[in-house]
C-alpha cells in the first residue's frame, strides 16, 4: 500500500459524507468542477512539494502567479498573440523564480527570507502595472481562449492540465536525477554536497520550476477567466502549503509526494464545496472547515499507523 492511502481514504470519506446528505454533490458535473477549481493552487502545491522536500519554501508563489497572469494579459492588451503572451507569462514566472533562486544563493540566505521580501516586491510591481485595475484581454477570438475553455468528454481543459502536470511532476520527483537531488539535499545537505551533488544549482532550478508553475497557472487563468485582477493569487500561498502538507509532504525535507499534494488540493476543494452544499451557515463555515481539516489529517494518520503496523507484522512472519 502506498503512502498516499491515508489521504485518499480521507478524501473518499469526505466526498461520500457530503454525498450521502446531498446526492447532487456526487454528480459528475460537480466532481469535475471540484477538480478544476483545485487546479490553480493545486499546480502551485505540486511545485511546493519539491521545495519542501528540498528543505526550502517559496512564500512568493501567490504574487508570482498574479504578476505572471498580469503580464500575460497586458501583453494581450498590447496586441501580442495570446499563445505567445501565455508562453511569455510562463517564462516570466520562471524568471521571477530565477530571481528568488539567485538571491537565495548569492546572499546565502534561506529562501523563506528572500521570498518574504520578493512576495511584496512581486505584489507591488504587479500593482504598479495594473494600477489597481483588472486586466481584461481585449480580443477573445484567438484559439488560445477556445482551447483553454474547451472540454473533452465533458471534462474541461484545466483538469487535463492539472492531472498531466501531476503525472509529469510525479515522474520528475521520483524518477529523474533532479528529483533525486532534491530529496538527497533535503535529507542531508552536507552529505549531498560531499557526494558531489550541486546544491546551489539544484536549489535555483527548484525555485525556477516553482516559478514556471506559477506562470503556467497564471497564463491558464487568463485563458479561462479572461481577466486578472490585482488581488487574485494573494491567498494561494497558505492553501498551496496546506494542500502539500495535508497530502503528506513533511516540512522537514527529504521526501514528499506529488500525488498526495494533488489529493490534498482536492480535499481542500471538497471541504470548501461541501460546506456550501450542506448549507452550513456562513458564520459556522470557517469552524467546520478547520474541524474537517483536522478530521482528514487524523484519518490519514490513523490509516498510515494501521498500515505500518500490519507491514511490520508481515515482516516478522
Amino acid at each position, binding site marked *: 500500500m502506498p503512502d498516499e492511502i491515508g489521504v485518499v481514504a480521507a478524501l473518499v470519506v469526505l466526498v461520500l459524507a457530503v454525498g450521502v446528505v446531498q446526492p*447532487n*454533490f456526487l454528480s459528475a458535473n460537480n466532481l469535475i468542477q471540484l477538480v478544476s477549481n483545485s487546479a490553480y493552487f493545486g499546480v502551485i502545491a505540486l511545485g511546493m512539494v519539491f521545495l519542501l522536500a528540498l528543505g526550502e519554501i517559496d512564500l512568493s508563489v501567490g504574487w508570482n502567479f498574479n504578476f505572471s497572469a498580469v503580464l500575460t494579459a497586458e501583453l494581450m492588451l498590447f496586441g501580442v498573440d495570446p499563445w505567445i503572451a501565455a508562453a511569455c507569462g510562463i517564462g516570466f514566472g520562471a524568471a521571477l523564480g530565477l530571481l528568488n533562486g539567485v538571491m537565495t544563493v548569492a546572499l546565502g540566505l534561506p529562501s523563506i527570507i528572500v521570498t518574504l521580501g520578493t512576495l511584496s516586491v512581486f505584489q507591488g510591481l504587479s500593482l504598479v502595472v495594473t494600477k*489597481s485595475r483588472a486586466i481584461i484581454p481585449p480580443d477573445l477570438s484567438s484559439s488560445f481562449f477556445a482551447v483553454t475553455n474547451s472540454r473533452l468528454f465533458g471534462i474541461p481543459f484545466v483538469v487535463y492540465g492539472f492531472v498531466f502536470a501531476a503525472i509529469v511532476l510525479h515522474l520528475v520527483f521520483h524518477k529523474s536525477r533532479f528529483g533525486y537531488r532534491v530529496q538527497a539535499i533535503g535529507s542531508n545537505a552536507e552529505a549531498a554536497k560531499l557526494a558531489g551533488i550541486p546544491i546551489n544549482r539544484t536549489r535555483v532550478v527548484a525555485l525556477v520550476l516553482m516559478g514556471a508553475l506559477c506562470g503556467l497557472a497564471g497564463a491558464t487563468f487568463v485563458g479561462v477567466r479572461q481577466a486578472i*485582477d490585482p*488581488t487574485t493569487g494573494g491567498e494561494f500561498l497558505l492553501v498551496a502549503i496546506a494542500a502539500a502538507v495535508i497530502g503528506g509532504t513533511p516540512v522537514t525535507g527529504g521526501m514528499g509526494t506529488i500525488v498526495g499534494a494533488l489529493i490534498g488540493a482536492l480535499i481542500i476543494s471538497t471541504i*470548501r*464545496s461541501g460546506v456550501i*452544499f450542506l448549507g452550513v451557515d456562513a458564520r459556522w463555515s470557517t469552524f467546520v472547515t478547520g474541524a474537517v481539516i483536522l478530521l482528514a489529517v487524523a484519518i490519514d494518520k490513523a490509516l498510515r499507523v494501521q498500515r505500518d503496523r500490519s507491514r511490520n507484522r508481515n515482516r516478522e512472519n
Partner: protein
Amino acid sequence: EDKIVIGFVTHHHLDQFQERIWQGARTAAADLGVELKLAAPDNVDPEAQLAIVQSLVNSGVSGIATPATSESLVAPLNAIIDGGTPVVTFLLNSPNIRAPFVGERTFPTWKEFGKRVATKLGADAKGEVLVGYCSADLEILAHRADGTIAGLKEAGPGLTVLGPFDVKLSATENYAAWEALALAHPNAVAMLDLCAPGIVSLSKLKTSGGYNWLIAGADTTPENLAAVEAGTAWMAEGQSEFLQGYMPVLMLVDAIRSGKKAVEPSFFDSGNQFVTLDNADEPYDLKDVSFKELVEIANSPELTAAHYKASLENGQLKDWKSLLQPLENQNK
C-alpha cells in the same frame, strides 16, 4: 497660513472602487488648493492602516480621512481627534468615532436593492434566491445582508431566500463558491452577491453553464458594468464612490480653514445608484444619465469630475452643510 495637507487613507488599494474614491479626493484637493497624501495598506489590515494613519499624523498632516475598518480603530482615532488633528470617516462607519461619516445608508439602501430584485422577478414569483457576501466577519456586510433579505421578503413573499453564504472575496474562491451553490441549487431564480467580485463570477458561470438566473450585486466597477451591458447581469449597486472621496476632503478643509480643531460628528449620505440597462438614476441634483453615459463616465476621470462639478459648484452639493444629518441616520 501653512499649507494644508490632508492624509487620505483607504483600507486597501486593490480595485477600481478604491481608485474612484481616490479620484474624488484628488479632485477635491485640486479644487481646494490643498496637498493630498494618499496611502493604503497592501491588503485589508486594520493594524497596518492604523500605523499609516498615525505616521501621517506624526509627519504633521492637517487632517485625516479614513474608513472605520474596525471598531478597534475607534480609540486611536479618537485619540488623534483629541490631539487636535481633525478626522472624517468614509465608506465604513463606527458611531463611536467623534467624527463625521460620508457614505451610503446601509440597511435602507440594501432593502431597496432586495425590493427591486423581487419586483423584477415578479410579484408572485416563486423559487430560490441565493444571497452571498464576501466575508462573514465584516459587520457592514451583515447589515447589507439583513437589508437585502428584508427587501426580498417584503416585495416577494413567494420567494425562498437562502443565505447569506460566505462566498469569499478573491476571484478564484468566489467563483468556486458560486459554482458549488449553482450546482447545489439548480432551481434558483436569482443569485445576489453583496460584494464586488460576485457579478463577474456569476456572469461567467451563467454563460458557461447555461443558467438563466437573475444576477445582481454590488459596485459599479468597469467589469460589473460590462456584465450589465452584455445582459448577463441585471443590476449593479453603486454608492457614489467619487463623493466618498471628495466630501471628506472638503469637510476637513472647511473646518481647518475656519480654524476648527475638529469636525462635528454628522452623517453625509453619499447616495447610491441602482444601475440597470435602463436605469442609472443619480442622487441629489446630479444629472441623470443613460447607461451608456454612465459607462463613459466610469471610464474617464475627467468625465467623472465634470459630472459632479455642476452640483458641487452651483447646485445642491454646494450647500452640503444643509444636507448633513445626525450620525444615527446612517443605518436607519
